[in-house]
């Protein structure tokens, strides 16, 4: 564990170095070229804006986080059974997949105002938009996982007289775990995108709303601060999913990508 952690720290050094260098170049350029603050604020100005608006910024961050989490969990709860249904037979797959593709080809920004009128100005339309943006990759990768089981393994199950349910529970689902987590990581990142898209269209709180109102008053540093919070949120969610995978399915995180190749 100890050398492992050390190796990981060393591996992350270049990334930290590059980030710090970029921030420095940014800061210096803004001062040297005297760029106006409402066009491109320096990192220090963004920092100051965040600190001075802190309780407010935190409130908006938590509002967005709520939408993101609800949308994300909705994706998980709906995608996994949907994936099982699609994977269960070619008929169900042929019936459901086209519908999914249609939901994906609708621009979510266009859908948001319609949903707000239909469902009222509350949290619901934002959660639905978040869900619509996030769930598709999760369904696709879960289906891929459920169908990637080597045919011999399925045959082994059948030879042991396992029924369809047993096969799903004992063979297909565990096999799909690395694929599901691949999809969850994408869904986590997309949930943040979805929540902001929804907030742009209709919200009275949240980082998307904060960005819009700040820009209306040329408070660019605060808008940048909101963007930074969004980025942080995406990273934290992604890492949370990765950590859950490492803790619950330690065998999974290292087989990802190799499962299909070796079997």
């Amino acid at each position, binding site marked *: 564990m100890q050398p492992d952690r050390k190796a990981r720290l060393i591996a992350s050094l270049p990334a930290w170095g590059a980030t710090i260098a970029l921030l420095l170049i940014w800061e210096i350029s803004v001062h040297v070229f005297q760029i106006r603050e409402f066009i491109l604020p320096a990192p220090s100005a963004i920092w100051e804006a965040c600190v001075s608006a802190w309780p407010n910024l935190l409130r908006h961050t938590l509002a967005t986080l709520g939408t993101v989490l609800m949308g994300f969990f909705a994706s998980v709860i709906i995608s996994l059974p949907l994936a099982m249904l699609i994977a269960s037979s070619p008929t169900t797959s042929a019936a459901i997949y086209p519908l999914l593709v249609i939901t994906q080809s609708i621009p979510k920004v266009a859908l948001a105002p319609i949903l707000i009128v239909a469902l009222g100005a509350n949290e619901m339309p934002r959660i639905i938009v978040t869900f619509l943006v996030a769930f598709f990759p999760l369904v696709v990768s879960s289906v891929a996982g459920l169908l990637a089981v*080597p045919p*011999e393994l399925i*045959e082994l199950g*059948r030879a*042991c*007289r396992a029924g369809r349910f047993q096969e799903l529970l004992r063979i297909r689902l565990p096999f799909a775990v690395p694929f599901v987590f691949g999809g969850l990581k994408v869904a986590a990142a997309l949930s943040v995108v979805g929540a902001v898209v929804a907030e742009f269209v209709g919200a009275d709180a949240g980082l998307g709303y904060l960005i819009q109102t700040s820009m209306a008053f040329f408070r660019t540093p605060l808008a940048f601060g909101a963007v930074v919070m969004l980025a942080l949120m995406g990273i934290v969610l992604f890492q949370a999913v990765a950590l859950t995978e490492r803790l619950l*399915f330690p065998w999974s995180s290292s087989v990802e990508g*190799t499962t299909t190749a070796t*079997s």
Partner: protein
Amino acid sequence: MIRLENVNKTFRGRDGTAVEALRDISLDIAAGEFVAIVGASGCGKSTLLRLVAGLVPTSSGQVMLDNAPVTEPRTDTAMVFQAATLLPWADVLRNVTFPIRLMHQHDTKTDDKARALLATAGLSGFETKLPRELSGGMQQRVAICRALLQEPRVLLMDEPFGALDALTREEMSLELLRLWSARKMAVIFVTHSISEAILLADRVVVMSPRPGRIADIINIALPRPRSFEQEGTEEFQRCAARIRALIFKGRDANAA
């Protein structure tokens, strides 16, 4: 014990064309007998095993096991595939006991039996390792242990050593013979290697392709226990020549 009576198997392809995989197969296998099947690729060897396993139905004719027709998978037949096909998420011990647990025959003695079996296969100390931490040969050994733990009366092996290197292959063949002679089960062993078939089997079934038929059945009169030294004997060479002739005759007839 196993009896195939005029078995035909025709697959209907996705485009509706019929593929005749097996034609008029009749074969008797005694309890505890070791039968090898050799033949060109595509002559229906795997299909034959699946029929005996009850995984696919015959098109006509019957597969009988202990005088009862085989219509579905049975708990007393076990299968080993070319790839080890272990569960990537389960350690060696849980992989070996997986079929037993699936069949709800798991009890307190199962794990001990599995450990003992793994020990005879040279895998003690690896019980808690994951499949990806094992070499290909070790993985296949685990797969064989998994099949043997079911204490099958019929063991079906589809090119079980096909993915292994030549040295591991020879070592595993002898090991398989040792494990087989310790219990009395019938083995049907599909292979592409003529010498492997002769070394292992009591009888070698030679199949010819398109449609898959039995070209001939060769009795191997080599004394047991078998060893690789027997490869030099006259009997071994005679059998090998005969099998080779049968396979190539089928091939020439097909080309003509």
